[in-house]
């Protein structure tokens, strides 16, 4: 069970005590409203913090410290959940009992995390310029590298075009020009504001008990000046329809992406019904899209749908022969029509439910799974435990799936196609 402890106004620790795992997990997230002005800064910040701190002023001394902690890892954490963006750090490390000669790992880990977060290397009242410039270059490379993976690129491009007036269309890492505009001073000022005003979510999975972890983490914030600013409420999707759009690249295979809107979000009572509807339609290897478009008509290798519950968006993606775009699109819409008509077999419904339930039941089997489920849930407002969530899925009927399908309206189509 998750124990929730309020450390200070706006600072919450959630602990999942479990001694089955060899590795423990600790995350600290500063939660921000997703906006164009901040996205790039929030993405850049953890990378700069990971360049050096008091006692470990460069990359190598950080890695040596982590090596001493039995191969512990610390990485940047930048999540997008609905209208929120989080920025922070993620640590994984072996449990104390596997250390040699009674070495401790958790406590020095928390201390080190505190140094990285609150005692960065500074010069002239700002972050070090060379660190910032280096990480700006890396972040730009990461943003530009998105197009290397054509499937991910097409999916992200669809969302950007579909959500031109919604926060969901803001790139999670910002844009290249946003990154270029950041200076060591502007990033440092932003950092000070983030520390002072943001909601802070801390999550721990491991064998230590919650009170002990609370005592350790409390120390990190004890002497910090804070002025917590409440976050705005999450909003539903709203953006004008995008019609049919395309882009040409030198690719062998086309990527068809279709975006649908629905009023159903994870704040709606019908949320789990929509999850099941998505699974029946295109969510896995027994879905209509997979069975009909791939298996029956051999039109693609890769096809599937995804439901973004925090916004009320459902997308379909398929890797196809460029000449067959219209044919595939037709097949996809036909399968959605079938769902709308209630043409869903017991097998399809059961398989969709079982797939969702199976992944929910597996949540408690890894530290990373636990952290991701509950820490994301704390941001989105989805508070069911995996057990409760599974039960709700169990109760979904065919009629409800049909009703959910009827709420889906095609909003934008994006086709990434080859030349010629």
């Amino acid at each position, binding site marked *: 069970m998750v124990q929730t402890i309020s450390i200070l106004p706006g600072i919450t620790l959630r602990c999942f005590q479990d001694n089955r795992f060899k590795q423990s997990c600790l995350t600290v997230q500063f939660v921000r409203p997703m906006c164009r002005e901040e996205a790039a800064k929030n993405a850049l910040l953890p990378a700069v913090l990971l360049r050096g701190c008091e006692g470990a002023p460069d990359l190598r001394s950080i890695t040596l410290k982590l090596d001493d902690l039995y191969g512990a890892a610390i990485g940047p954490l930048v999540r997008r959940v609905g209208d929120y963006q989080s920025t922070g750090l993620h640590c994984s490390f072996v449990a104390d009992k*596997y250390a040699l000669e009674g070495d401790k790992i958790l406590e020095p880990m928390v201390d080190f995390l505190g140094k990285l977060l609150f005692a960065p290397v500074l010069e002239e009242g700002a972050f070090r310029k060379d660190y910032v410039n280096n990480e700006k270059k890396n972040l730009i490379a990461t943003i530009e590298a998105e197009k290397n993976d054509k499937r991910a690129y097409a999916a992200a491009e669809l969302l950007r075009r579909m959500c031109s007036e919604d926060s969901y269309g803001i790139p999670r890492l910002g844009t290249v020009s946003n990154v270029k505009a950041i200076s060591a001073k502007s990033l440092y000022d932003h950092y000070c504001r983030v520390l002072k005003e943001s909601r802070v979510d801390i999550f721990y999975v491991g064998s230590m008990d919650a009170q002990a972890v609370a005592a350790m983490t409390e120390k990190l914030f004890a002497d910090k000046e804070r002025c917590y600013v409440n976050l705005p409420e999450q909003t539903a999707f709203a953006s004008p329809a995008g019609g049919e759009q395309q882009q040409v690249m030198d690719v062998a295979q086309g990527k068809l992406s279709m975006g649908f809107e629905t009023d159903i979000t994870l704040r709606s009572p019908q949320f789990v019904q929509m999850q099941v509807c998505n699974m029946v339609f295109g969510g896995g290897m027994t879905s209509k899209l997979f069975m009909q478009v791939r298996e029956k008509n051999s039109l693609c290798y890769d096809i599937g749908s995804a439901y973004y519950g925090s916004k009320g968006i459902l997308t379909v993606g398929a890797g196809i022969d460029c000449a067959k775009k219209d044919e595939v699109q037709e097949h996809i819409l036909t399968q959605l029509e079938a769902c709308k008509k209630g043409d869903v077999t017991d097998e399809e419904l059961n398989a969709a439910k079982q797939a969702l339930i199976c992944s929910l039941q597996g949540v408690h089997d890894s530290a990373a799974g636990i952290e991701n489920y509950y820490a994301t849930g704390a941001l989105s407002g989805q508070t069911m435990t995996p057990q409760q969530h599974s039960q709700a899925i169990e109760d979904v009927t065919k009629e409800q799936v049909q009703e959910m399908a009827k709420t889906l309206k095609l909003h934008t189509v994006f086709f990434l196609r080859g030349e010629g």
Partner: protein
Amino acid sequence: MEKRTYPALAEEIVWHTLPNGLPIAVIPRPGFTKKMAYFVTDYGAIHTSFTLDGEAYTAPAGVAHFLEHKMFDLPGRDVMAEFAAMGANPNAFTSYDLTAYYFSCTDNFEDCLKLLLQYVSTPYFTKESVDKEQGIIGQEIGMYADNPESRVWEELAKGMYEKHPICVPILGSKESIAKITPEILHACHKAFYRPGNMLLCVVGDVDPEKVCEIAKEILPETDTCQVQRVQSWPEEMTCPQPLVEKQMEVAMPMFQLGFKCEAPEKGEEAVLWETVGDLAAEALFGESSPLYLKLYEQGLIDSSFGGGFETVDGMAMLVASGDSDDPKAVQKAILQQAQTLAQEGLPEEDFLRMKRSAMGRRLKGLDSFDSVAFRVCAYYFSGFDYFRFPEIYQKVQPSHLQEFIKRVVTAQRSCLAVIYPKEA
């Protein structure tokens, strides 16, 4: 049944071999709801030439992967739908030297296991279904052709090897898979999906006796055919093409730098060398190495940079890869640093810290069901018990690393493959 325990890792494995020759490994995970079974054959993309009961076969490139796709067909049944109805996630993959079929589930474990064993042991190929699969795999080949990571790896393999079939893509080509027939699929299945050529590995809170009972009930009682692999791929330690350069739709140049190594044998000695290779990569250009810091601060590498020691049946190489504006400068810096390490060796303190870190990372990996099942299988076919890795780390000495770097990390053995962005 034989139970082996590994107190330092808090692990155990229950081993059993069926009368038909199938080895079974069960790794208990008390208190976990997830259960996973891997049914793996010691047969992959590179094993295209063999004799079966005296008759010689040369199969088209891509046949192992094609067979993997076709195994999911059972006469009159829908394997995917049956797994789905039980809430299980089935999947499979083909690598250069093995093919794995697996599922994970929380309920209905025994029925899922039965289904896994049934479909993998039942060959059923028709002309129609083979034709249809050529369309699906054709699209899969197209997907990888657009993927710069797989392209740069394939270019590296072609640049480094002339005889070893690693220079042929696992999926084959549209042309090679067009030659695949139900007959050749039958021959490959008969030759390599014999119980004695496979391993069943289960991870989870299950009863090992029950697992053995089910395997005995479903699988053939005996394993009688005579199979010989034809695999002799003598290679020079130099590379046929030391530099391969291509262009694609990428944002920044993407490279893989390989150093050719002697093919390892099987067993503990081979695993020792693999560990030496991994630690040598760590010492040379790992995140805690002075070279990594230098290259990172110069902006020549970013966090995409990494590497290690890769082994496939009959070949081995040290690889470094990532994105860089100047891959040739990275290659030059690695070669220079290798010379320094080859002369001066590695400080004892750095070596111990590196070993501790590598051990810790392996230990963390034991929380992953997939990683445990896969490694136990892969190491079994290499003749080694995976959970003995702490002993191997104890045996590795700094001099091993120094000797390895001196021998392997040289300009003569290296090949650089780069995918550059398309010129506008």
